[in-house]
């Protein structure tokens, strides 16, 4: 097969996603814009990392400390919006007794 590195050159870029986010914001949907900006942050991560982060956010998968660590990692790797989402989740999960 001729294809060697299939995904690399067909990835949307963070810049493009941020531009689309601005369009969504201008069209009156700041939530969609925010999602596209989170997506822009996640372009830097590999597929299997995304799958792992998602799993970690599901109910009962992570302790509060582990979610804090995930948020810190996201922050450190240039994904502050995703980090904020994870922190907010951690707080809500603890308050609602999903995790401790």
């Amino acid at each position, binding site marked *: 097969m001729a294809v060697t590195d299939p995904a690399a050159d067909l990835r949307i870029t963070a810049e493009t996603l941020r531009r689309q986010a601005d369009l969504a914001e201008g069209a009156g949907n700041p939530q969609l814009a925010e999602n596209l900006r989170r*997506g822009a942050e996640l372009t830097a991560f590999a597929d299997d990392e995304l799958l792992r982060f998602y799993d970690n956010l599901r109910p009962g998968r992570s302790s509060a400390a582990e979610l804090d660590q995930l948020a810190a990692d996201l922050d450190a790797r240039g994904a502050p919006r995703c980090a904020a989402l*994870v922190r907010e*989740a951690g707080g809500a999960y603890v308050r609602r007794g999903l995790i401790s």
Partner: protein
Amino acid sequence: MFFDTRPISSDTLVPDDPALGLIAMSGPNDPAPSIRIAQGRIVELDGVAEANFDLIDEFIARRGLDLDVADEAMATADLDYALMLVDPGVPRRDCVRLAGGMSPAKLAHVLALMTPVELMSAMTKMRVRRTPSIQAHVTNRVDHPLLIAADAASAVALGFRELETTVPVLRDAPSNALALLVGSQVAGAGALTQCSVEERTELELGLRGLTTYAETVSVYGTEQVFVDGDDTPWSKAFLAACYASRGLKMRFTSGSGAECLMGAAEGRSMLYLESRCVALSRAAGAQGVQNGGIDGVSVTASVQDGMREVLAENLCVMLRDLESCAGNDTLMSFSDIRRTSHTLPLLLAGADFLFSGFGSIPAYDNAFGPSNFNAEDLDDYLVLQRDWGFEGGLRSRSDEDLLPLRRRAAEACRAVYDELGLAAFSDEDVEAVVVAHGSLDLPPLDPGLVPAAGDAIMARGITGLHVVDALAQRGFTIESERVLAMLRARLDGDHLQTAAIYDTEMRVLSNLTDPNDYSGPGSGYRISADRRDQIGRVRQERTHADLVAEQGPAAGCLRVANGRPARERPRPDEVVVGLSPAFAVTVWQTLGGCTVAEALRQVLAGLEEEGVASRVVRVRRSIDVGNIGWTAARLSGSGVGIGLQGKGTALIHRADLPVLANLELYSNAALVGPPLYRALGRNAARHARGATPEPVLLPESAEPFGPRYHARVVALVAEERRAVEPLDPIEVELTWP
């Protein structure tokens, strides 16, 4: 009991039972709408104080609502906002702006006030995209890849712009996704594909480019059910961001009834819970929502006002300025009348996606379970579209159109599986798939083949680009380019905007490029002249020439030659038979299916049987069977005549009666065959002898006459009319070939 035998009686309906969540809207336990803001944050939502927010409240309060308009929106009277929604003079954007500041309970309150027609009227204005579209289910019982590819090609040729597949067995999912991707690009460019499976797998298929959008990102209206579904609002929001990061279109899925089925509706009404789902979807940044009669629709349908609730939840999505993918994807009744009634209002009102989806495959092959409309109903749908002139997204296709596409799709899919070393298929497999109605028409598939192919796709890291390459290697150049175009389109992200689809030229239609600009009659989406023509051409359509040509096989069955001018009452013991102007001239076959020769022969035989003489004349001035019979009666020595039209309508008349009266009438020619024409002759003879025979009764029939015959009546009557001449009746000589 007779009514127990009707299909509707197989539907189980229940009274309101709020404790179980079995109440459509305005439940006694629904909260009063409220939003309280302090220091720039929501501290109370729909009667719940911040400290007591559940996961859903909190997610909506933190992310979903526009605090700048909340006070104004919540202070707007429910009826005033409902009026804004139905008033075409109020711009859509004004309605969207206010909805942004309304709590879930507030929107549920407003929607509960609206009648079905008001809901429909609001939907016409409030859906996001001007151009409605439609999604198909493409699945089969055995996950046969070639059949998926061929059915995908058919679906796109019919007009479907999104194709959704799923699996009975998770291991098959990668194979289904790949086959669907290949098949979707055979009939044209731009159709989006998805494979509905467990969240993580669905994401992985998308990341690999084996699907081009995602939909089964399920959310629920109570915390318990949400968590039972192994997710939270935050994990779903993260999932949404994952899809965005790879340039994949994605929408959430909700739909009333799910919480009841999971036994945790918290005593709330369906519309309130659904309003929470929609608010949450907006909060998470999803561009759209699939709801309105999804898996739980039969629960919603079991309660009073359930169908109105389903329509209201579709509208709720539109008010939140999200793409509405409007359900109708689950068969919700045993009654054809009832299931049609579920879907029709939405079709007339319009949605971004009218179905999610329409079962483009036979009901038995639908791995989601039968849709509310299935392949069996395709022509019904096309005729509904033709009747009402709504944009249903589909067009009729002949076998001549579809079979080459199905062959191409099956061959392309076979080539990809071979090129990638996933499976080998035979020529016989392809041949069977091309003409198959469904999987039951195929030779048995090795049960290990598809799971093994799925495993190989996953294990070997096969992606959409491998598919592009395999298609190109095997000479499927156009398909290769189209699949590549679907992957490339991710790069610019225009399809990530709300309600985005591709047209067949790969142009993006979305809230930005194709905004719904309905503002009353004459505005918004309109059916073009070309599209109207396409909608009109359905399989059941027969031109005048077609209908006249149906007479062809019987042409020449009888020769009727003009003789002398009709004599008046030459002998007392006769009955005169009057023929219509086109009888055995251009009209040769009755609506009942016998030749005009046979009809006339039987009438004359009936007269002869009773020992009465007959004479046949052609009435040339009138096509009216009463006038023809009356004219014959006035010429008849006995005063009794028979009128006989080419289409088979017949009567017995008497000269002393008014022209519009008669002694006996066969008004429904479709029910009349040779024995009844003979009986008519016999009775006419008895009348001629002064007896009063028992009238002949037509057989009972519950079939409608009009749908099958009225178009034919028009065609045959037109032939009669053309044959009229301003001439007196004339005696004819009959030759029976």
